[in-house]
């Protein structure tokens, strides 16, 4: 990818970001944010970080975009959309000054960076012990597995936090609006056609994650998208918030991961995998994580419980 393409891409990114941040109409800003997310994914592709590009496209642009559209919808229904009045000029001036200062600081810091060669070689040397081809997965689930463990728990805590906002009278009910569609219409037929393919792609992403770009989070997002597709096309309704199997699915991934960590601790090396079995252990954890992440992301998008029927 040539420098010219990069510069053009960066220009587009900055343009999309400016429109997303300072756009007049809120819905317009949200849409431009999604465009911005996709462009950032392109930037990661141009940098050769395919894992991150996948994550950014799926989670950064995709799920966050859907969340923001959902929030916009919620605000519209609640009549709290008082957008398009520009903030008073002193605030804007101070914000601009602060932004310039921060930007300047960061740029001077970047320029003053010594040429650091980072840990690329170290990861390459060490990842043999985990028998994993993909260095990113080796870091995510091997060297810095503790970060990833905490992160999955952050997701579960976020879900508990979103559910804590449910009005008491509908607790135990179903999150999200009721979607209905003509039984044989386009939505219903596509809703039946695409999920198997989505499932296939998701499973492939996890399986490939060990040696090529992919992994639990990206796959989880794809599976969550499949779930949303099914619900959106009215084929199935969201599960009740209080259903036990749903809760079991949510905690399955983190529980397996934490269990592996604690088992390692009992065996003398916390979060350490038994020599030789590292790859299998990591794959098991990844599969469990994918299922839980898919469920958690879908439920985060659906939001707090909203209706009982």
């Amino acid at each position: 990818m040539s420098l010219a393409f990069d510069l053009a891409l960066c220009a587009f990114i900055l343009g999309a970001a400016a429109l997303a941040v300072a756009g007049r109409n809120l819905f317009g800003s949200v849409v431009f944010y999604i465009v911005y997310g996709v462009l950032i994914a392109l930037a990661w592709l141009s940098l050769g970080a395919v894992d991150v590009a996948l994550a950014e496209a799926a989670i950064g642009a995709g799920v966050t975009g859907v969340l923001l559209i959902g929030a916009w919808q919620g605000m519209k229904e609640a009549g709290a959309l008082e957008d398009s009045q520009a903030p008073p000029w002193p605030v804007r001036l101070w914000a601009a000054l602060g932004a310039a200062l921060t930007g300047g600081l960061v740029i001077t810091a970047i320029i003053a960076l010594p040429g650091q060669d980072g840990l690329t070689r170290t990861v390459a040397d060490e990842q043999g012990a985990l028998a994993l081809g993909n260095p990113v997965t080796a870091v995510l689930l091997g060297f810095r597995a503790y970060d990833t463990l905490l992160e999955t728990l952050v997701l579960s805590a976020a879900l508990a936090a979103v559910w804590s906002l449910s009005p008491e009278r509908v607790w135990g009910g179903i999150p999200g609006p009721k979607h209905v569609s003509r039984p044989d219409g386009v939505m219903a037929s596509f809703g039946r056609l695409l999920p198997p393919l989505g499932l296939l792609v998701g499973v492939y992403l996890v399986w490939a994650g060990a040696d090529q770009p992919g992994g639990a989070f990206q796959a989880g997002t794809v599976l969550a998208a499949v779930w949303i597709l099914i619900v959106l096309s009215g084929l199935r309704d969201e599960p009740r918030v209080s259903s036990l199997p749903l809760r079991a699915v949510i905690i399955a991934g983190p529980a397996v991961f934490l269990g592996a960590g604690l088992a390692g601790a009992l065996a003398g090396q916390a979060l350490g995998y038994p020599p030789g079995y590292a790859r299998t252990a990591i794959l098991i954890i990844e599969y469990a994580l994918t299922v839980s992440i898919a469920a958690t992301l879908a439920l985060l998008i659906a939001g707090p419980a909203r209706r009982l029927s």
Partner: protein
Amino acid sequence: MNLLFALAGAPLAFLLASLIAGRHGARLIWIAAPVITALAFWLALETHARPQGGALGGWMPPLGIALEADGLGAVLLLTCALTASVTGLFALGRYGGARPESARRYTFWPLFYGLWAGMNAVLVSRDLFNLYVAIELLSICAVALAAFGSRQAAVNYMMIALAGSLAYLLGAVLIYAALGTLDMSLIAQRAPEARASVLIAAALITGGLMAKTALFPLHGWLPPAHGAAPTAVSALLSALVVKASFVILARVWFEGLPGLAGAGVITAFGVLGAAAIVYGSVLAITQTGLKALIAYSTVAQLGYLFLVFPLAGGGESATPWTAGAWGAMGFHLSAHMLAKAGLFLAAGLMIYGAGGGRIADLTGLARAMPVTSLAFGLCAVSLMGLPPSGGFMAKYLMLIAALASGQWHYALVILAGGLMAAAYLFKPLARLFAGTGTPAIRALPHRSMALAPLVLGAAAIALGLLSAEPYALMVSGLPEAGEAGLEEAEP
């Protein structure tokens, strides 16, 4: 190192268990409290011999993550375990019992264990990015619990938390870009190589953490959030959450970048700390609502912690304990943790009993609720820094460090802070004793709920009387900058 992982992992396990336990989620606290406190106590015993630590999964930094707990970490883990256990048992009154599952009764427990796990994770880790994820887990649980009270306050808290975490993340990213590692001990070794970038990164990290610790002038979000939250939640927020970001700040400056802090930075911390003490106390004195008063008291008490930066060295005085200010920070952190949680729990009981949140409604409650009033008194004694409490030991050691190093202006601020604390804490205390008749109060869900603040208050007082052991533990394994002071310590 396995013990440290277990200490961070145990609350996580209970988080997951409470997610699936549904109606019986509340009863888990009866298992969680003893288990985690026992683990923390075991760690304290181990750390007494030598600081505990090790690389997770066997991968040494800079590649892997190293967990480490020095004396201060062990004491804070134990105090945090005690406070969280007692507050958890107290919360059974509202979020437990045989009642059917409700949104709040169900989601309180995972958020409670998430908060506890976040605290433990912050106290055991020395890796900048790992601390970021831990403090995010802590923040999301804290904001969600604050939303149990006032959602508007929770939104403001969320915005500040987001800004703070971004600034911290940016700082951590720049440090990795400059030094190629995120582990504090390695950062200390490599810091001089890229002074300019590391300084900018440190400024960003400090700004972010100051926002999360609600240090004056970034404290606006704390009083509404802590004041309006339900009792158990405000106790958790004021006692535990604000301390985690301070501990990270102290670790970053004392262990990560010891030689880097110029005189200007250190005095800035001192001045901001002093301003926080004065501002918080004056605001607390003028409050009419009891919980608002206690919330502003938190803003003031946090100011004391920031005085440790200028006082760290304490000068090579005749006093045999030159590490005074580091020990003082340890005492202040743990005593405030116990006393503030106890104070909020007692205040919650009194407000529930008297049926009104204003200080004027408390008239004569000492007669109607003697045990709760005694607990309120004990906690107030520690917050005022009057002997024989842990708060007094902190104040005493800080004063010694201030005068031994010739910075007597900080001593004046500390003494004035103590007097102002007495002013705003005796206001409700006097109300309790005023009036002649015994006011009618609403019966508490469980008679034994008043024991929770009493245990915490007694612990705060005991920390002052039996202070030799905790002190010895706190100063074991303290960073070299903690003893020689931020400026003198060469990295």
